[in-house]
């Protein structure tokens, strides 16, 4: 049994997907595996919510998808970051950093824990 993990916070899944795809195009399964690796220790990602997220990001124009031969030779739907997706990632990273900073600030203010 894996150690107790907490569910991924609302809205961060999109950011994580964009981050993973910023290193290069990948199909859904590869994204899932990468998520799995990142989150093994900490967060729990429901694989079922991956595909709605991918389609949502594609719909918004942040991802572009095409059917291409994968490493196994079988056709897979490969997602890649678009220019506006890259901009969006920067925006989300920035706001995440600010949020995290603000939360840390509040914890520090709040006295020893």
């Amino acid at each position, binding site marked *: 049994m894996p150690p107790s993990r907490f569910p991924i916070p609302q809205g961060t899944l999109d950011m994580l997907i964009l981050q993973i795809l910023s290193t290069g195009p990948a199909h859904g399964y590869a994204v899932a595996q990468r998520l799995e690796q990142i989150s093994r220790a900490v967060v729990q990602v*429901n694989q*079922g919510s991956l595909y709605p997220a991918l*389609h949502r990001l594609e*719909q918004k124009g942040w991802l572009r998808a095409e059917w291409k031969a994968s490493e196994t030779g079988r056709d*897979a*739907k490969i997602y890649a970051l678009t220019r506006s997706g890259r901009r969006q990632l920067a925006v989300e990273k920035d706001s995440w950093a600010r949020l995290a900073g603000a939360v840390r600030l509040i914890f520090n203010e709040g006295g020893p824990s």
Partner: protein
Amino acid sequence: MNLLNWFRRARLEYDLDRELQYHFDRRVSDLMEEGLPESEARRRATLEIGGLAQVREEVRDVWFTRWLRDFVYDLKFSARSFVRSPSFTAATVLSLAVGIGATTAIYSLVDQLILHALPVREPERLVLIDWKGDPVSTGFGSWNLMSYPICRDLQRHDRLFDGVLCRAATTITLSIDGAPEPTAAEIVSGTYFHVLGVGTALGRVLEPDDDQPPGESPSVVVSYDFWQTRLGGDPAVVGRTVRVNQYPMTIVGVAEPTFRGVDVGEVPALWIPASMAAYALPGFDNLLDRRTRWMQVLGRLKADVTPAQAQAALQPWFATMLVEDMGRPGFPRITAERRQRFLASRLEVTPAPQGHSALRRRLAQPLWVLFAATAVLLGLACLNVAGLFLARGFARDREIKTRLALGASRGRIGRQLLADSVLVALAGGLCGVALAPLAMRTLIEFLPRDTAATALHASTDRRLLAFAFAVSVAAGLLSGLAPALQAGRRSLIASLRERTGIGGGVRLRKAIVAAQIALSLVLVIGAVLFGRTLTGLLAKGPGFDTTSLISFGIEPRRSGYTRLDASRLVFRIHDEVRAAPTTAASAIARYPLLTGGSWNNQMTILADRRIATDREVNMNAVTPGFFSTLGARIVAGRDFDQRDTRAGDDSGPRTAIVNEAFVARYLAGRNPLGVLVAVGSGPDVQPNREVIGVVTTFSYRGLREESEQAYFPMLDGGEGVDVAGNFYVKVRGTPEQAVRSFRALVHAADPALPITYVRTVDEQVSRSLNAERMLATLSGGFGALALLLSLVGLCGVMSFVVSQRTREIGIRMALGARGSAAIWLVLRDAAAMIAAGTAIALPCVWMLGRLVESQLFGVTPTDPVTIAATTSLLAMVALGAALVPAYGASTVNPTDALRAE
């Protein structure tokens, strides 16, 4: 975006399946590599992904967003519930089908006749160039008339225009391989096809080169339809010779299929260059005369020039031209005041993407009136459906309450009801569109038709379908709005409480019925006004006796006759007609009666002093016996006789007969006999015709018109003016018999001479009332439908109220109230609705009156008798309809009513 996805959802589903399958297969094979048996690997993979169906659902939500999916679900639900209640469905769909069908049919005519641009290159750049002011010239034709030379002048303004054309519609006698037939033609400048940007299916179009000196380019282009129907689509038609008014001309091309000329109401079979005008219009030799107006001038503006700019830029040249014109030989001598008016003339440039149409001008207003009427009818149908939905909403109260209790939002339920009405409206629209072509054909039958066919057709094209769809959706939303709002507003507690009170949106439904009564009152009053106009005109008649009166026409000049020969032929045929056993009396007129047109001009009258008429007098030349043939009385003086009709030398006595209207306007209070008159109003006009008689006033142009008229004798064998033979014959026996003998007579005189028309004068009267008949019939039909719809609505609401108040009525009866009291209870409600409807309608009638005023005759739009009679009639009929449920109330059995709860 979402909608787009909806249309390619099959593709999306397929791709999603493949994508998920790929994920699943990879996961299974990875797990098996880790050492799991296949069945276990499959189980794990499924578990991890959390159910494929669930994932699919969630991805679909991304594609279509919720509302779209919900809406589709709603539509399915609605469709199911409609199938369950067929009579309700039929009632609503039928109401809307009638409304949408009628609106679509009338809109189709409005679109084709008024809105639709010509099928030519960039029609939006076409403009009509028209003369505003006094052109000091004579004109013949329809409207916006200009001379040919001024069109040539305008063609030089190539900084403003990419070309200028002129055209005139006419009827010619066309002979192909012998058989002569009256045929619609358009006389056009050589620039015509180039300016419009119209090509050919075969051969060449007319070119500017065809605008050569008069008579030197006998080339014609035929229309595609004519080529197909009359020339059998002959591929070798180019180069063939046809005879236009017996003059040989060569077909040089066939126009492209979609092109039907610039007048939607008068489609030409062929185009003749203006340089051949003398042959297309026999005896016309004024092509190059600047004072003869007979053509419309259309221009194609340069891309960056607006009509206003073009108008302003033309003015300096035009002002100079006016001054030059006055110095030209042949310019008439005119009074100083008239010269001023002439010099103040200007050119007006107006957008004309729809070309130029006399029919449009005549029918535009009646059509808009009818369109407004159908819009009202459609509104009424929507109200009806809204009322029915409200009623059903109450019946479905239990279902709705259950859904609310289960947590459905009010918005969601409102939307469901909206989906209901949109679905009904779409079904209604579908039926309406199916019915529309039939309605359109009937409508087109109402339109006046002569030699030229109209380009109006009864087919539904994409524009029309789009219109019907938009109207259906709008009607659906409109009729669903009230029930949806009602559902959204009613709270659960309130609707539970309503169970014993008067609920079910009765107040709203009463308001709807009041609005329905208002709308139908407006329509019915309109129908009565148009009906009275038609019957008034028919009862008045043309002012002469039309029984057994037949008219027919021949145009020998269009068959190659010279003036003298034509005149001889007409009189010879007339002698034979008069001798025929079927003839009681007969006469000839140069211009036909009741066709909308006339020969008209100002006149000069010399009585005590010299005056010019302040408006144009309608004139005609007739043979002796014309008035007695028509049964019009000579009230003073005498009719023409041989003394007046002797041809030849100008020194002979010249005479005229005027009508009573003429005397009343210009010669009131003095003896008209012996007064001298002449045609024209210039200072050089010599009044030399003696008035020898006064005739009663009768209609000449049309039934509405009873203006000043003057008649001159038709000279026997005269060479001065053309003799066109419009015969008026009072016959014995049946008209058919007489017509047969006339045809034989004309055929014997010249087998190649076509009869241009033959009909009874009653028929002619009826034809001249086409627009009035269309308005009266259609508005009557709309009024009846409207009345029916609102009576059904009223009856429905009242029965509902009665069923709601059964308990109350039962108690009252138990306490000793009579049946009549129950009736009164219901009728009072109905009377309140009728009164409210009337109060809404009357100001509307007053406001709309202006719109229809010009279409009426012998009755004002706010005619108190009409309004009072119609209102009280409607009120009585409505009360009668309310009596049915009221009677039901009076027969309520107290015991049953009380036990029912």
